[in-house]
């Protein structure tokens, strides 16, 4: 029983990890960033490359990946997204193109492969990241087996969620972000520097994706299209939770993760996924704006 709950919890934490960045870029900024998965991927590659070239360990890779993904996100905001605020579907389409480009850039080793130069750690192949061995050795506390890596992910996710909540709801930056989302013109007229705040917000959401990338790299394969499959799950979570509601995102990932875990243990993984999709559809039909959403008149 506790084991099932733990599996559900760890599934939830991974969903939340991916959805957290999205709930900011999508929920707070109205950008459907299909390249979010690629920012996750960039975070993972940052960890791989920093391991190979800088000999950085896993823990130092976390902030580094945050920074790298945040920078890429910031560039993305500057070059593409900035011109598309308010055109939500267009953000989806444009970032879809960006996702293709980013994937292909990694695959082609930033184009160096054309010149026959091979960069260790890049290219179309699979890469791996080393995890400190104390995070992979399970141990027991009072007869309860503890999986350190998954527990670590759960804790980091929790901390990031709290941090995000604090930033969004307890700081003036957060108010600014939310004001911009609702009405950028009025926000500007109220003295908010829309461009700067948007750029920072987007960078923060992207940075979260980078951190997710490192953590995922610990138990998943690092490869150019590793992000593509995660982004869909992330969107399902954000939308089911209610766009713009951080609490909704947290609860939706909790719910979907637990459902997935329980069905996977009781029946099988395939059925579990089918049930998750079914639940997503049912929830949206039941609450057409997600679990938590503000209803204006």
């Amino acid at each position: 029983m506790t084991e099932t709950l733990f599996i559900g919890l760890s599934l939830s934490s991974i969903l939340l990890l991916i959805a957290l960045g999205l709930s900011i870029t999508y929920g707070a900024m109205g950008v459907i960033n299909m390249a979010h998965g690629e920012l996750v991927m960039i975070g993972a590659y940052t960890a791989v490359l920093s391991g190979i070239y800088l000999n950085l360990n896993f823990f130092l890779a976390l902030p580094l990946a945050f920074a790298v993904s945040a920078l890429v996100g910031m560039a993305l905001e500057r070059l593409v997204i900035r011109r598309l605020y308010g055109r939500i579907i267009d953000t989806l389409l444009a970032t879809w193109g960006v996702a293709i480009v980013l994937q292909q850039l990694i695959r082609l080793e930033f184009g160096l492969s054309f010149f026959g130069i091979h960069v260790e750690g890049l290219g179309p192949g699979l890469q791996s990241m080393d995890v400190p061995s104390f995070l992979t050795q399970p141990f027991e506390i009072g007869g309860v087996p503890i999986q350190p890596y998954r527990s670590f992910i759960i804790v980091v996710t929790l901390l990031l969620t709290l941090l995000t909540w604090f930033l969004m709801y307890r700081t003036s930056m957060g108010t600014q972000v939310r004001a911009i989302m609702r009405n950028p013109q009025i926000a500007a007229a109220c003295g908010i520097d829309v461009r700067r705040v948007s750029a920072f917000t987007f960078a923060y959401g992207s940075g979260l994706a980078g951190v997710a990338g490192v953590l995922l790299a610990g138990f998943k394969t690092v490869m150019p299209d590793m992000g593509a499959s995660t982004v869909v799950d992330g969107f399902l979570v954000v939308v089911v939770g209610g766009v713009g509601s951080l609490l909704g995102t947290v609860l939706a990932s909790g719910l979907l993760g637990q459902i997935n875990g329980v069905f996977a243990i009781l029946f099988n993984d395939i059925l579990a996924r089918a049930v998750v999709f079914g639940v997503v559809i049912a929830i949206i039909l039941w609450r057409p704006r997600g679990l938590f959403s503000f209803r204006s008149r």
Partner: protein
Amino acid sequence: AGEIEVGVLFSQTGGLSIVEKSLADATLMAIEEINAAGGVNGMTIKPVVEDGASDPKTFNEKASKLVLRDRVPSVFACYTSASRKAVLPVFERRNNMLFYPTYYEGFECSKNVVYTGAVPNQQLSNFIPWMINTLGKKKIFIVGSNYIYPREMAKVSKILIEQNGGEWVADEYLELGHSEWGAMVSKIKASGCDAVLSNVVGDSVIAFYREFRNQGISQEDIPICATVTSEIEIAAMGAEYAAGSYTSFPYFQAIDSEENRSFIERYRAYTGNPNAVTHHAMESSYFQVYLWKQAVEAAGEASPDAIRETIGGQTFDAPNGKVMVDPENLHTYLTPRIAQWGEDGQGTIIEAYDEPVEPLPYVAYGETPENLFCTTDGLDSAKL
């Protein structure tokens, strides 16, 4: 003098390019070597390379381009069964030849395909008995990715397990390309099995082995015995996660022969990557070009019909040893081997057949060396 064109169709882009790029490289390397040695019948081979983009629709379109527009007599192509199935109608209806280098589930008997990868009996006929009798693991948990190959491998395995007095405790699947193994591995732990037979493919493999270790299962207690885990995945997961587990394949990078060492060296030089790994499907991609060359030379021409006539019975000293195309079913005789993975990411070959084993594509259906379903005139439906 002159040129002869052949098609080379693998995914250069998309998710499958991870593996397929190495197949394309191996094919092109073989072509380059042959050309350097004077070509075939005095003609240079000119590869027409196309990108399948990891999508069956694209594979189908490009195959028809190669066959109908470029009119190449043969195409070296495809990694997944899904892509092979998508191009098959083009080859059969237009009577062209496809050379397919991947291990696959069998159940095909096409006059237009030469299969140079292993079929289930060439990976399992020694593996399962060895697991039960030598390794002494009687209760086996079968897991796989949810598609045809793992399901058919499971079917063959179950027959073999029962024949050898073992017992399979479960047969479970995870969606292809997924990597959330938490629930599955805890089921394995709870099942009381002695060993896991893994037909997991692609990047899911890495997540699987890592989760296995993270949940504290040791390869000594419950070894993973895999049919698909190759050097690629081992390198990517970090060798320590796989150390102690087993794989059954006809080819390993660790095969200790002059041919193989030279092959690895040439491949690394060719790709410009000193760490490039070699593996079964890419080795097949390599030697099948030589088989094709011999067939063309034997026929004196390169028409698909001529190649089909002469390809049967061709033998070649491949990096894995001697291989031969079965004239009955155009599959390839290969030597099954079992390797145990070490801390260095290389396998140690601990068990091998003495000589190549006959390919039986319908083995799950009851095909035996005495009772062949696939004949020179196609599938013998009376036996099914």
